[in-house]
């Protein structure tokens, strides 16, 4: 389980493409907030949700199985009990990381993905972690836990 600053920073720094499973097209939903933020910070977003054709200017896939682009992070905005098949699909398409959002905590799915060699993050928001580790969240008065005497690069 990647839960420390160095591991989370490495995952976010080496990833470029994020498949967002359960992404909503409603601007006020947390999944849209997170995906728009990551897109603005240079990540390619691949929406996965059978209810939409396109979100954030990207073609929306009904399921991970039809995604042909190489995926770095599979970011899961689904109920905890629905994550296991998503983990299986993430392994099948060769994703590098299974990332379960805040409140999503399927330990079995995490163990399965870890056993297949994927990085695993659980119960964290990809946007909040990006802003915590690369700047932004500190402007909101949040305790980022980042202590460093080095200039951010």
């Amino acid at each position, binding site marked *: 389980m990647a839960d420390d600053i160095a591991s989370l920073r490495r995952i976010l720094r080496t990833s470029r493409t994020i498949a967002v499973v359960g992404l909503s097209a409603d601007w*006020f939903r947390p999944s849209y907030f997170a995906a728009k933020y990551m897109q603005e910070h240079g990540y390619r977003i691949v929406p996965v949700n059978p209810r939409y054709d396109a979100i954030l200017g990207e073609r929306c896939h009904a399921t991970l199985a039809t995604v042909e682009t190489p995926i770095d992070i599979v970011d899961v905005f689904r109920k905890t009990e629905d994550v296991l098949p998503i983990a299986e699909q993430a392994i099948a398409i060769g994703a590098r990381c299974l990332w379960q959002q805040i409140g999503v905590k399927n330990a079995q799915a995490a163990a399965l993905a870890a056993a297949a060699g994927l990085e695993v993050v659980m119960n964290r928001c990809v946007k*909040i972690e990006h802003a915590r580790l690369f700047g932004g969240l500190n402007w*909101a008065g949040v305790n980022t836990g980042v*202590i460093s005497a080095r*200039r951010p690069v």
Partner: protein
Amino acid sequence: MADRRFHPETLAIHAGQIPDAATGARALPIYQTTSFVFDSVDHAASLFNLQTFGNVYSRLSNPTVAVLEERVAALEGGRAALAAASGMAAEAIALLTLLQQGDHVVAAGALYGGTVSMLAVNLAKLGIETTFVDGASPDAFAAAMRPTTRAVFAESLGNPSLAVLDVAAVADVARAHGVPLVVDNTVPSPYLCNPIAFGADIVVHSATKYLGGHGTTLAGIVVESGRFPWDNGKFPGMTEPSKGYHGVRFYETFGDFGFTMRARMETLRVYGAALAPTSAWQILQGVETLPVRMDRHCTNALAVARFLQSHPRVDWVNYPGLPEHPQHGLVARQMRSVAGAPGASGLLAFGVRGGYAAGIRFIEAAQLMSHLANIGDTRTLVIHPASTTHRQLDEAQQRAAGVNQEMVRLSVGLEHVDDVLWDIDQALAASAA
């Protein structure tokens, strides 16, 4: 590798401030600007929608002020914090974010006078009722709870009563009723006591006092634990689309720092009691040395308390750091140990033999001790509450606030303790009629 858990001494210097990304400046730059440019219309829209983090206008957030917010959040073991123009502003922001017309508050009785006024007069005008109870009795808090209660309020260490709150016991009462416990932690400072570790949900400070420590600058801060379940049905303002900020659901969107975001965007933004960047910078100069200063405040105050105990012109001494203090066990459990004794801050109270008149003579004879209404300065401060801060109250009201006629309150400073003892001794000699 697990992240290192840094000590308070380290957090006091580093938390919230890494070298400036633009210039490499090691010390904190003062971003003295009202406004921040948008990169594009789309960037502006994202900022206003709270979809991206960033600065818009210094009434909402400012990079210098944000360092103070994160630093105090870290020192308190909280998730997030919001700074304000004074301690009273911070308290008002916390309560106005939590409460609305028809809500009820249960508060400890012996509180700072300004807080009593806010609850009993100002919030009452808005249709928010407060029941004041004996702060030493968790059962009294429980007995006063109503279906409409939405907050429990108390001070970790009362000013000037020096009553010690059993944070864990009162937090249990609040939790059982599904409402947050709000604790004013000004007197211990985050170095001596962390109410969140004992179950408090929100902590407020007058940063004017020990956090700044120099007596030059007003500031306040609200800290959120990140642990309160705002979706328990009692706080629709946290879970329903915000009327005050175009439909954002603060708890769903920001999770464990949703209260701080709502306090910022709904309350601070509208009422406007923002902290000036220069003031935040000045408070942070003090915060860097908070642990060193608090250690000395505590050892000096304990020495003063012992001296007063043995002085023939003194009737009684109230210092929670003394082993004779009736709540000593609680103090030892809840406060950091400083030089082998529970660190109970620099605040103490004592009774000058001879009542009201003797108390006044003591004050008038002080040479080194400054006669003023603040606490938590490097200088030793002295006041006779019955003739100053509490003079508008009658004797019964004064007793309820923990003030008697002969009581003198000291905020023991960082001078050499022998010089402080010398001044107290000569002023006590002069207090004899």
